[in-house]
């Protein structure tokens, strides 16, 4: 039974439960709803919740756990040699899964019965050819052991799905019956269902904590594994980044960190003055009509996906900088460069800085400006000497938040900064960043026991820690100094 149909059945049962519970409550008081403790709907709601929620929770849990259990058992049967080698067992599992899905397709296409499939063996019939017919291409002839595993994989999957369906339905019916049996006129249905809902709300709020825990756990566990096979001091202090497929890689963080910080610096040099002046103009100078047009249009920039900026960097900005600045000055001939990525990230960050700064400038009390005007200051003097100093902590916070975004930016640097890890000062040279390397180490074929793949988690951890510190610091500054004027 597919998950979709099972969900529909559980849902239908829960809806039926609502009406049955409601009418049962009314019947228990001979239709006189005044004698009920709660409104009749709450009795129905109790049955609905007790039917649906545990069943769906079980289903979700089962769907997560089942593949892990099945994989573990299959790998266990493949023999200790494969089971102990993480890469080999992963590859074997991929083969098993591919053949199993091929068998599914074969069955759907030819209408074979399960018994016929069971009798199929890898050496007898031309499995590879028959699977190719249904669109599953296999690299080599099928290993009989793998093929047997694929067959038992299918059986286990089918059994698992059936057991899940039965258990989910049993749980739904049990919840249905139990909730229904508790219903009588004095039953405090509203309190029960409200408490139930309240726990659901708490669980939803807990998702935020779970996400953080998930991020930290997934980064930390793989990072620790990485440092188990690659020395930690090499990672932090090696000055070269040179991953090799055959081992013996140099995986030094410093060139990547340098590229990241250099590009972010260029971005901030662009974004900070433009963003702040744009905010000053919209907040202090612009007539209301201009402001109501300009502000949303600038914020439009923030709504454009970063991959669009990436393409802009790749197709327009990069070649422009190369042809008109870098080549004539003899600074390099690379379209992707620190300057390209930095300029474009800078533009991306303008609306971020300007809208935060605008809010902060608007929060400076008008009385301070009036005082300054009263002493004879011009508008720009007021802004420079009164408004900006008052708004400074907030602006610093905004700049730090923008810097953290620039450091974590991925698509623009992937498309505009280049892939060569270098320690250099020439801004027209291609350099690379932490995020670029995370993407390049984690796309394509992955081997979760090689340092070349695992280093991406250590890089992710570094990125996470840097941005987290910047964010906490920025939020602290904003919060600490905001109170002065309230």
């Amino acid at each position: 039974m597919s998950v979709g149909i099972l969900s529909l059945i559980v849902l239908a049962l829960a809806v039926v439960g609502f009406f049955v519970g409601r009418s049962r409550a009314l019947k228990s008081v001979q239709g006189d709803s005044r004698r009920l403790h709660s409104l009749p709907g709450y009795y129905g709601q109790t049955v609905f919740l007790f039917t649906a929620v545990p069943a769906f929770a079980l289903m979700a849990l089962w769907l997560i756990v089942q593949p892990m259990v099945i994989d573990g058992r299959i790998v266990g049967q493949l023999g200790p040699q494969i089971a102990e080698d993480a890469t080999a067992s992963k590859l074997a599992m991929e083969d098993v899964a591919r053949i199993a899905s091929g068998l599914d397709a074969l069955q759907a296409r030819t209408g074979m019965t399960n018994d016929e499939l069971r009798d199929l063996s890898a050496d007898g019939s031309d499995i590879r050819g028959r699977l190719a017919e249904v669109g599953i291409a296999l690299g080599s002839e099928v290993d009989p052991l793998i093929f047997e595993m694929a067959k038992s994989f299918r059986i286990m999957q089918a059994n698992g799905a059936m057991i899940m369906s039965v258990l989910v339905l049993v749980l739904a019916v049990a919840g249905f019956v139990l909730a229904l049996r508790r219903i009588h006129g004095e039953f405090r249905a509203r309190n029960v269902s409200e408490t139930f809902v309240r726990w659901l709300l708490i669980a939803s709020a807990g998702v935020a904590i779970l996400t953080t825990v998930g991020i930290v756990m997934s980064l930390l566990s793989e990072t620790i594994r990485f440092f188990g096979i690659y020395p930690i001091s090499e990672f932090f202090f090696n000055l070269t980044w040179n991953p090799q497929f055959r081992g013996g890689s140099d995986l030094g963080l410093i060139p990547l960190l340098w590229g990241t910080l250099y590009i972010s610096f260029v971005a901030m040099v662009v974004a900070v003055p433009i963003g702040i002046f744009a905010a000053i103009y919209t907040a202090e100078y612009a007539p209301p009509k201009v402001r109501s047009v300009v502000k949303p249009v600038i914020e439009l920039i923030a709504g454009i996906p970063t991959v669009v900026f990436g393409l802009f960097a790749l197709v327009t900005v990069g070649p422009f900088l190369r042809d008109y600045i870098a080549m004539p000055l003899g600074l390099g001939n690379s379209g992707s460069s620190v300057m390209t990525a930095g300029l474009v990230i800078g533009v991306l960050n303008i609306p971020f800085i300007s809208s935060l700064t605008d809010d902060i400038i608007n929060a400076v009390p008008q009385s301070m400006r009036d005082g300054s005007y009263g002493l004879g200051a011009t508008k720009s003097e007021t802004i420079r000497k009164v408004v900006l100093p008052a708004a400074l902590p907030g602006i610093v916070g905004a700049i730090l938040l923008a810097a953290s975004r620039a450091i974590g930016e991925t698509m623009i640097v992937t498309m505009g900064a280049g892939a060569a890890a270098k320690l250099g000062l020439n801004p027209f040279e291609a350099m690379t960043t932490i995020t670029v390397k995370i993407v390049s180490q984690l796309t394509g074929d992955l081997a979760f026991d090689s340092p070349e793949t695992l280093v991406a988690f250590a890089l992710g951890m570094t990125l996470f820690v840097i941005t987290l510190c910047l964010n906490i610091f920025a939020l602290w500054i904003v919060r600490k100094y905001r109170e002065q004027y309230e």
Partner: protein
Amino acid sequence: MTDISPTSAEAPKRPQAHGSLLTATPLMKRRNAAETRFHAYGIAAIVVALLTLAIMLFTIIRDGHSAFYQATMTFPVTIDAAVVDKTGTRDVAEMTKVTTIGYARILGESLVKHLADEGLVVEGMTDKEITDMISKDAPARLRDRVLADTSLVGQTVTVDVFTGGRVDGYFKGRVTREIAERDSNVTVTQLDMADLMEEAGILSSQFNWSFITAPDASDLRPEAAGLGVALLGTLYMMLLTFIFTLPIGVAASIYLEEFAPKNRLTDLIEVNISNLAAVPSIVYGILGLAIFINFAGLPSSAPLVGALVLTLMTLPTIIIATRAAIRAVPPSIRDAALGVGASKMQTVVHHVLPLAAPGILTGTILGLASAAGETGPLLLIGMVAFVTNYPASPLDGGFLDPASALPVQVYSWASRSDPAFIERSSGAIIVLLIFLFFMNALAIVLRRRFERRW
């Protein structure tokens, strides 16, 4: 009159510092100049920002609009029964054994014959060169058409087929004769023939629906590459993300705004949410790879995994927006409901939520719009894979089928070497921006329509 003369006589004697406000002192001039400069800086900043935006949109539309048009040849094709149906039984199972090579020959021969009939000749052009003008994708499309309707066998039908990517690029100004001389994929004679064919009305530029509906195509066939799989993938992901984020986001916000006691746990959750909103999106990709794919064993490239990652990523933003919407409902409404005996939960569900609903929806849609353009995390969960099969419908487990996504398609096309794919990539951005425009417009309409001022 007498009053004036003493003052006018006295005025020059006054020291400069106490001069009239109407006569500018050097200091005042400097200050005014500074004022003007400062004002100009502000305007310049705005102009730079808007100009960059305008240049970016302009270049993308300039590069991308031509993706929607494609040089198409229209000519009659005789579907030779001897080639496509050797048994003569019109049995589809037998006919599937004929590969696209057979259909390519039919198309090529028909085009050569048609050109000869029309009297279009270019000196020194071989039949192979003529055949090569047809897109490598055309035989597959003809094959699908014949297999779907076997009565076409033996008949002469008029087909619209794309030209190869280079000939198409010639009409779009991307390929010139000088380039063609150096390019092994196209010859100058082919371009001459294309000109003749255009004059004869065989070749024309037509609106390219297959750019929106067709799946991706390989490096050698940019003319056939389309957004179909990517659009479906994005649609599936948005649907799932909406289904996941709305209930969880609303529930979490209600709890934090209305029920949460002031304690350590609540503080922890709040700090968590504001920090999660600022975590770089690529970190969510690592999370998705490690937990959903590696640990839970979900298939990579699946819209379900993409949606889970995007859900975790956008939840903090949506919770922040939803809480603002709930907070905007004035306390007097709650007090009134509580005053007539409603429970806390009834107050929230019957009064606060309906009043906050437009704000919540607006925030959710805006959150989804930003998720729709997200690329980095999707790369890590394998959505950059080359997928040419449409995912199945959601009821058949389509959420677990490999699919692509619009922004990822932009990236993967941009990283291919053939410049024809830059056009495709920009075209995909136009589609993506239209998609986002409608989501944002929906949010704005909702806000305008239902916004309340208390």
